[in-house]
């Protein structure tokens, strides 16, 4: 069923490139006023790229890599980013009270 | 693949599941606000995935146990994540569609913050 896999690859590649462009898009000025503004979307988009990449790895006959990418590249990396983002946001809000 | 009745049934189930997934995607695009989108997303994709898993189980009976496990896992976790997300969205004040007729939760939280 080679045409099936090729078609799926094509769709996944397009989705990955769109998500990657979303991840590095310049934030609009009013969003970028705070340090964390607009960042959740960028992180989520990067996580999405990893997620789709792991299906691509599966099509490329590399299930080990697919599983690692899903669990580590997409899962844990995104979680770490959000933990850090949460802590930075807490600094920001508490900093506003101090200054 | 050979056209045995079981295979045919499996393929039909697979197509039905994929159709429900597409419906979920369509609902995600068409619905006017977040809560309605969550509704469309959760329900249609859960049933769609379950049906396509059942279809594949008919096509490849050896994989039945693992497919059953995936199905059970999705059936249990998907609603929980939707509910947690809906709660978070409501708390962070996502705007609701103008069609919304009543919001008892906001009323109750306004009364006793």
């Amino acid at each position: 069923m080679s045409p099936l896999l090729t078609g799926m690859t094509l769709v996944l590649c397009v989705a990955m490139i769109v998500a990657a462009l979303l991840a590095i898009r310049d934030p609009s000025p009013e969003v970028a006023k705070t340090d964390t503004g607009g960042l959740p979307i960028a992180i989520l988009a990067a996580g999405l790229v990893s997620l789709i990449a792991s299906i691509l790895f599966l099509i490329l006959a590399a299930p080990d890599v697919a599983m690692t990418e899903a669990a580590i590249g997409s899962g844990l990396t995104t979680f770490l980013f959000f933990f850090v983002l949460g802590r930075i946001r807490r600094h920001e809000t508490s900093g506003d009270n101090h200054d | 693949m050979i056209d045995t009745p079981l295979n045919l049934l499996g393929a039909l189930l697979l197509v039905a599941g994929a159709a429900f997934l597409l419906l979920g995607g369509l609902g995600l695009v068409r619905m006017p606000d977040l809560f309605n989108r969550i509704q469309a997303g959760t329900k249609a994709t859960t049933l769609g995935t379950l049906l396509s898993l059942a279809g594949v189980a008919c096509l490849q009976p050896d994989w039945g146990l693992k497919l059953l496990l995936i199905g059970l896992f999705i059936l249990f976790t998907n609603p929980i994540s939707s509910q947690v997300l809906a709660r978070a969205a409501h708390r962070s004040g996502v705007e609701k569609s103008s069609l919304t007729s009543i919001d008892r939760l906001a009323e109750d939280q306004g009364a006793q913050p």
Partner: protein
Amino acid sequence: MMPSIAQLAMATGFILILIGFYGALTQRNLLRMIVAFTLSGTGVNIVIVAIGYMHGRTAPILDATVNAADAVSRVIDPVPQALVLTAIVIGLGVTALMLAYALKLHEQRRSLDIAKFTELKW
């Protein structure tokens, strides 16, 4: 002519590397730069795995469908996969370190904008 799966994947990997570089070079927010770095990493991994792909062959795991006797003619190159597996894990370690430093910098300066970190400018 229809492009093969490997070529499609490789092209996507290259494009991802470029997108990631562009992001890392033009963004000013530290966290956004780290996001761009992870994108580049994903692109590199895709390229390496795609190089190892061979049309019409299957994953290097022996089971009922691929028995040990004809493994040589049925499976694809396992070496790039082992390499990428290691690379992904180390990538997480690197990302975690970068994030910890970014967090510490933000704690000291209350900012993530690299234009505000001027000590090392020349």
